[in-house]
Structure formats: structure tokens, C-alpha cells
């Protein structure tokens, strides 16, 4: 007879910790994108105007197995998704959170952090 046992509590806490740390990496990348000149095609400058948008980028909210990234600036949705003026001209969106997430390599970062946390 041979037995193998896992330390479930250690694994659960390692997963949670790695998830939170990976979410923080995403958050940092999101904030970097906001301040990065030329991050979006067609826009030479960065998104920062008064610094309000960057200041309103909230830290990730962890709900179970979901991390929620949110910006609470009143005009964030217009910058993020773009808008059309009544005169017909339009401004394309600059989805900084999506880009920050793409750049973060979340899955790889999570796997690496988890491995480090469990070893």
C-alpha cells in the first residue's frame, strides 16, 4: 500500500495568493498603459490629461475566482469605448484595461507565481 496526500489548505491559499499577485501585475500594466505615449494607434500622446483617469483606476477587486478592474472616472466610458459627436465626427475608443490585461500574460504570470508559492 502506498499513499500520497496533498495539503489542500496550502494549495488553496497558494492559489489565492498567486491570483491576487497576478491581478496586481495586471493593475500595474493597466496604469502604465494609461501613461504610455502612443499606446494606441492614431494617438501620439498618452491618455493622461489631468491625471484624473489614472487616479481613478481602482485596484483589482477580488471576488472568488474573479478579479474586477474598474475605473471610476465619470468620463471613463467615453474614453474607453469611444464616442460620436452630434456633428458626425467620432473619436475611437482607447481600451486601456484590455490592453493592460493582454500585455500582462496573466496565465503565465499566475502559473509562475503559483509554482513559486507552492515550492
Amino acid at each position, binding site marked *: 500500500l502506498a499513499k500520497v496526500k496533498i495539503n489542500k489548505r496550502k494549495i488553496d491559499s497558494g492559489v489565492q495568493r498567486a491570483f491576487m499577485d497576478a491581478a496586481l501585475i495586471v493593475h500595474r500594466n493597466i496604469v502604465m498603459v494609461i501613461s504610455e505615449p502612443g499606446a494606441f494607434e492614431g494617438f501620439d500622446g498618452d491618455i493622461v490629461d489631468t491625471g484624473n483617469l489614472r487616479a481613478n483606476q481602482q485596484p483589482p477587486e477580488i471576488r472568488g475566482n474573479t478579479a474586477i478592474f474598474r475605473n471610476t472616472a465619470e*468620463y471613463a466610458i467615453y474614453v474607453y469605448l469611444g*464616442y460620436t*459627436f452630434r456633428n*458626425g465626427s*467620432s473619436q475611437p475608443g482607447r481600451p486601456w484595461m484590455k490592453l493592460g490585461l493582454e500585455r500582462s500574460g496573466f496565465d503565465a504570470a499566475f502559473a509562475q507565481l503559483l509554482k513559486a508559492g507552492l515550492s
Partner: protein
Amino acid sequence: MPNPLEVRLRIAILLNGLIGTYTHVNDYGQEVGTSPALSIEEASGNSPDSTVRVSGLEVILRPNLASPMTPLLGSTLLSHRWEILLKQWDSEADTIAATNRLVGGLPEIVEVGPRVPRSTALDTIEARTLVLEFPEIQNLRV
């Protein structure tokens, strides 16, 4: 992958009675005709034609925006991503009814974007983007 004109037709049927109007004007600003405000935007991204005035709900179909590839059992799965952009030029109306009809009638819709509300401060109109996906398998080895 479907023909954009076929998808346009399906949208026209689903949104019967909701679609606004393009009013075409000549160089002197005189009206020369009208058509349903339902158009297909080319990949280059057409800017609004200055000889067209829009009223009510405008629907813009953007075909072939991207086609990410995924390996699939020796073949390739292409996911052709299209968009439907809804713009509501009537300040008394919204994009909700049109969104509900499209979601109910187009199973290819994989993402419903949030409503970008009109803003009197920015002088902008309400808009919403829906994403469609048309999967296609290529190089299938039998």
C-alpha cells in the same frame, strides 16, 4: 464566412421598424433621397459621408475586423470577428430595443458591449457595439 450583404439583410429584417434614415443631400444642401440608416463599413474605416444626414437609429456593420487562428486537430480554426455598431441620433430614444432584437435573432453575437450613453456635456450620441463571431475550419484533413 457569410457575405456581408446577407448579414445586412438579416439585420434589416430583425430591426424592422427601428432603423433610422439616411437623408442624402446634394452640394447645395438639397435633399435628393433617403435610405435606411444601415450600412457596411469597409476595412479602411469610412468616415461619415458629409452628403448624408442621419436621423434615428444608425446601424453600421463592420465585417472582417480580425480572424484569430487556433490549431484544431491538424486543421485551423478561424474565428472571423465582425462588429455591429449601433448609434442612436434621436435624443429621445435609445439602443436597448435594437440590442434585444439582435441578440435574440443573431446567435453569432458573442459579446454585447455596454451602452455608451449620450452626453450633453460632450455633445455626443448614445452608441453600443456588438461583436459577432463566425467560426470557420480550414485545411480539414479527412
